[in-house]
């Protein structure tokens, strides 16, 4: 019997873990809180785990919780395929297989002493949330901190109260927008890039972390460039089909990079030309 303990074993074989709590966030998005033993399941913001539902399959999901609370692994995901739909039906006390953590983290150290701009599109806020926890915990290490967040509609917004608490208590400037308004919405309407031109940060000394659909990341990177943020200070998180997550099965290749081990976080110059290759 292999009880995964450390190193390569934790990467190769799922460790059975108990689901402590399942929270519905929006109509198609939910969060699982998974119990861990602390220690070896520590992760860095931007990394992901492969989550296994008994007999159904495994999917890569970014960790979306607080890296300073190793006793619980939090994952927020959309229920969009077989495995995530099966995961959505799990209740507190159920067992889930966890393999990981994998991938390159957001390079937060590169932002120390600088302004930090986080730009999230849709579910892309989930892989960025661990950064927010970390930044709030050491707020004085950074200059201006701004979160620009866009979603499809008001009913798709995630973690609103938490974001407002960070705005009020941790001095993180917050701007939220939706692509389409619904009755009663009095906030911004428009794509998330429209929030950039007047966001409160100094482009020359800013580092940007961007996560969302590929098209959104492309246009955001362009808007950042127009605002004067150097390309080398822009980081994005990519997503590809993954089976092994250890750089062996070949599915997640993106140009010469394996998204599972050379990413998912990449500096923008590295992916810029690849994102404009038309695959069809």
């Amino acid at each position: 019997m292999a009880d995964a303990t450390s190193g390569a074993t934790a990467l190769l074989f799922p460790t059975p873990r108990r689901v402590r709590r399942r929270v519905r966030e929006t109509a198609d998005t939910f969060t699982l809180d998974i119990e861990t033993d602390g220690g070896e399941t520590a992760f860095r913001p931007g990394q992901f785990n492969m989550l296994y539902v008994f007999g159904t399959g495994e999917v890569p999901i970014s960790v979306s919780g607080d890296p300073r609370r190793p006793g619980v692994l939090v994952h927020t995901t959309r229920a969009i395929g077989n495995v995530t739909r099966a995961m959505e039906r799990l209740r507190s006390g159920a067992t889930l297989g966890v393999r990981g953590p994998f991938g390159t983290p957001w390079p937060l150290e590169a932002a120390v002493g600088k302004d930090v701009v986080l730009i999230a599109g849709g579910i892309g806020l989930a892989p960025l949330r661990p950064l927010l926890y970390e930044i709030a915990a050491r707020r004085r290490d950074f200059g201006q901190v701004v979160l620009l967040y866009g979603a499809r509609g008001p009913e798709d917004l995630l973690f609103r109260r938490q974001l407002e608490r960070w705005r009020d208590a941790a001095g993180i400037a917050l701007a939220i927008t939706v692509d389409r308004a619904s009755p009663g919405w009095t906030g911004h309407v428009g794509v998330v890039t429209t929030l950039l031109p007047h966001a409160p940060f100094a482009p020359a000394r800013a580092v940007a972390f961007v996560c969302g659909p590929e098209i959104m990341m492309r246009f955001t990177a362009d808007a950042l460039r127009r605002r004067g943020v150097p390309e080398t200070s822009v980081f994005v998180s990519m997503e590809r089909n993954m089976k092994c997550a250890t750089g062996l099965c070949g599915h997640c290749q993106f140009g010469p990079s394996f998204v599972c081990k050379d990413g998912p976080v990449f500096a923008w110059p590295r992916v810029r030309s690849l994102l404009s290759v038309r695959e069809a």
Partner: protein
Amino acid sequence: MTDGACAPGTRVVLARAGLVQLLAALREAGYVLVGPTVRDGAIVYREIDGADDLPVGWTEEQEAGTYRLRRRDDDAVFGHNLGPNSWKERFFAPRVRQWQAHRDEKGFRIDAEQSLPPRIALIGARSCDLHAIAIQDRVFLDGLAPDPDYAARRRDVFVVAVNCGQAGGTCFCVSMGTGPRASRGFDLALTELRDGAHRFHVEAATARGTAVLERLSCEPATGAEEDAVDAVVAATAASMGRTLDTTGIKELLYASYEHPRWDDVARRCLTCANCTLVCPTCFCATVEDVTDVTGDHAERWRRWDSCFTADHSYIHGGSVRATGRSRYRQWLVHKLATWIDQFGSSGCVGCGRCVSWCPVGIDLTQEVAAMRETT
């Protein structure tokens, strides 16, 4: 020929009959022999009992989209080249169970698979294929988490290499710097000599190789025999079926993403995946999670996959590479260019199998040449 123990040394000559004894000695030492044999109209690597199973007197006629067995007019043992399979399937198994999961009162537990593969001896491994094995070693053993099944199968493998006495119709190992002379990854390397007595020049590279030779009757190789080996290798090198100009190939392909030649290839390519199956370095795999009828027992199996399948690049919303054009481009650019950035060498060893076994005869050396010409 002196009878009795062989003098330890790195280069000796073995009589034709000595080959029979060599294979028998390896069997006695507990190795399962895997070597070329005629099966279903092709020469394939299978488990063999001894030297009698080798394809004596057979050769192949190979061209783009063509493979035919032909009888030779002599009794050369290794007078053939490469068939549709490679050593890849011995180490990177086509189907392997990785772990089992069983429901229990606490939820479920995972039992890792303990692979206990037999010790095998590769008989007649060609230089290109030895380079391919080294390339796959880098993929499967040098990464984040070395694959335990691959590692177990690679342990204690005895390799009897053969320096090719003729080039195959689709071979281009010289262009890729992978042959025809075997230079690494073997215990013993044989060169078949048929000028005069039918015999084998043997180069022993390891202590284990020399130890096996000590149980056979053989003689030290003379200068003349060294020259004969050089001549055989040179003749093979001069008669390659194809060439591939690898100058700046990475930059060439990186700059050619929108080259019209891809449309041309796409009109021919069936995305049948043959090329990836016969290629000795392709490593894409997929995993299948299966349960039994009771739902209490689940297994994860890994099996070969191909980037030519429609759902290889599937993420929610659809496949990233939805057309044959983009999938062929992915395969070729990966094999010849991005592989270099990933693993420090080309992914192609010039074995020519993809050319022979493509049902429509697509030849990647021709595709690259066409792009080079019009760039």
